[in-house]
């Protein structure tokens, strides 16, 4: 079971028959573990980015890797996101499996073109695979301000050819990063900075791979809350404030591919949906989920398709302002209550 300081955490799907050995890890440790395991397993895998070498990265996600794998496989780069991404595309075309770290997800905008135009379009255009991972420490909640708090996933969702995933638990962080590394496509891996050290959970040791599908974290009959990343924890917290069995919580985990069937199945059953996004509201992932539901689950809907997201402003620095902008468990609870009463 994961633990989280102020919310009950999503359950790992726990009940595996021949359960592998597990260890309690933070979300961040789980990421490092995935990198280590995959680098040991496949010598084509290497990591690159600013300060990821001996220093271990701004968040210490690559700590220890330089010592184990050396400078060729744990490469410090100049400050140059376009080159980090673009040379990774080249290395991938040449048969390697680069895992880039963008120091903060916000900086991906400076390498955006290589990502959307070169990496994303390559396979459809040419048949050439670009197996690479872009690790994007994203999200707010710690007074990072407008340039260290962004959630850019919707930009990638609107760029065909990129996979986009956003784990919420340590076990998923490990398993989905491993899956991203083994995937033959460019994968944007959104790891939430605010979860790094705040949540812990049981994580399988050794090889552990999670598929890019949604997961029902909590079952309910009257309302579906759809969330991912850090918001998942708030959704679970809010759902826990209602009687058991009323509110279902679906952790999307993957945004591209989007697990449309899981979303539709849940909403068709509950008839109501609340979609929570940490990103700015307009054209966010939640808008796509809402559009999907409003089209394909329309006849089963018993209430409006509600969304909660950050309003369309940059994320403020001052904690009081930031809290006013980011969705909270209270606001989720309030919206859920309204929907349940609809």
């Amino acid at each position, binding site marked *: 079971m994961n633990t989280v300081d102020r919310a009950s955490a999503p359950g790992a799907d726990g009940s595996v028959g021949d359960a592998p050995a597990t260890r309690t890890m933070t979300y961040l440790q789980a990421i490092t573990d995935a990198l280590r395991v995959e680098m040991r397993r496949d010598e084509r895998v290497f990591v690159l980015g*600013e*300060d990821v*070498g*001996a*220093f271990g990265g*701004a968040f210490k996600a690559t700590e220890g890797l330089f010592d184990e794998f050396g400078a060729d496989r744990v490469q*410090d780069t*100049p*400050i*140059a*996101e*376009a*080159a980090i991404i673009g040379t990774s595309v080249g290395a991938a075309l040449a048969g390697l499996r680069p895992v880039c770290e963008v120091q*903060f997800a*916000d*900086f991906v*905008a*400076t390498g955006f073109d290589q990502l959307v135009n070169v990496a994303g379009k390559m396979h459809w255009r040419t048949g050439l695979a670009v197996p690479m991972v872009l690790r994007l420490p994203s999200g707010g909640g*710690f*007074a*990072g*301000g*407008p*340039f*260290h708090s962004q959630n850019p996933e919707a930009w990638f969702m609107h760029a065909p050819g990129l996979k986009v995933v956003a784990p919420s638990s340590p076990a998923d962080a490990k398993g989905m990063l491993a899956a991203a590394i083994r995937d033959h496509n460019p994968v944007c891996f959104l790891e939430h900075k605010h979860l790094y050290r705040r949540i812990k959970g049981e994580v399988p040791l050794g090889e552990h791979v999670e598929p890019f599908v949604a997961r029902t974290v909590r079952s309910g009959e009257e309302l579906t809350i759809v969330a991912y990343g850090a918001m998942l924890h708030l959704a679970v917290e809010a759902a826990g404030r209602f009687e058991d069995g009323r509110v279902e919580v679906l952790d999307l985990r993957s945004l591209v591919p989007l697990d449309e069937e899981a979303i539709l199945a849940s909403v068709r059953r509950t008839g109501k949906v609340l979609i929570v996004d940490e990103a700015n509201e307009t054209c966010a992932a939640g808008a796509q989920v809402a559009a999907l539901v409003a089209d394909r689950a329309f006849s089963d809907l018993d209430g409006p398709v509600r969304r909660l997201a950050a*309003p*369309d*402003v*940059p994320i*403020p*620095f*001052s*904690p*009081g*302002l930031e*809290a*006013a*902008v980011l969705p909270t468990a209270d606001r989720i609870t309030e919206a859920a209550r309204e929907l349940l009463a609809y």
Partner: protein
Amino acid sequence: MLVEDPHPPTPDRAPGAPPGRPSDDVAGPPAEDVSPPVLTLADREALLELMVGMRTFEERGVALYKQGRTPGSFYDGHGQEAIPVGATFAMGPDDVLCSPLIRDMGAHLVRGTDLTEIIRHHLGRDNALSRGREGNVHFGDPRRGVVPMVSMLPDMFVVAVGMAMAFRLRGERRVALTFFGDGATSPGAWHEAMNFAGLRREPVVIVCENNGLAYSTPSSAQFVVSPADRAPAYGMPGVVVDGNDVEAVFAAVHAARERALAGDGPTLVEARTMRMHGHGSHDDARYVDPALLEVWRQRDPIATYEATLREAGIDVDAVRTRVLERLDLAVEAALASPLPDPARATDGLFATEEPVPLGRGDAPWSGFAAEASIGGSGR
């Protein structure tokens, strides 16, 4: 119509050059016949006071951060004070700073930005600079011609080139001063800004603070050729200066400004120094050899300048006392300030009124006193 040979030998002037500009000396050193600027004793005392002000402020800032009173992060420029102070001291009131970065607190002090507001900003209190929307080094004071930075390196250099272009197009006698570190020369934006500035001879003064480090990464893992030596590749001179010598920085930047005002285009001033603290207050910088730090500590820009000025008869202790008094008052006032109103977090996304021009900053150098006002607009 393309009539010239498409391959003019370097560094001949391009036909696309702005009209009325001399075509010689594009990549040469700054003109030699500019008389060196004179610093009066009062100027020198002011330089010291500004450097001490920066250091004292930042030391207090570290303390407030470690006490948990400052949200987010804190960055300082300990050991690099001579650069923002010396460079900004060479700026006239209508010049713009676009933008002071992570190690450049002193630039704000030179322009006269209110200390209490700066501290309020850092603390996330309501304030006139950022209304709590921004934190740490992300502030400026448009009323004083200082444009706030963004994090993405070195985006504000590109913006500075655009401001300089506006000055050139309007025939104004003012320059844009920009700052960035050694590491910020690696992103593509740096190249585009250098190229636009050199090609169009924009009146921009470019200060590269080479402290040998970009976070944990040494310059040697950023580039093979140092920034000043790259400037000629853009048709502009590159000048290396001792970044721990405030008067040397002032002189080099002053010359660069004169050159820009004369229509001869940009100069890259590479000020060499050392980052004496971690990248931010969260970073113990254990990746830096203590012996190397010790070498640089001997060259501390404030201690050495204090010794010089003491010999010149200035009461440096009085300077320190004044600075500390001001700081204590400002911190007290800031700590007593209210937080911003959460209800207003989302207002003002879009501008709805005719923009207010940037204002004029303090220009404390005595050399400007004699000069006529050069037509800036108030705010």
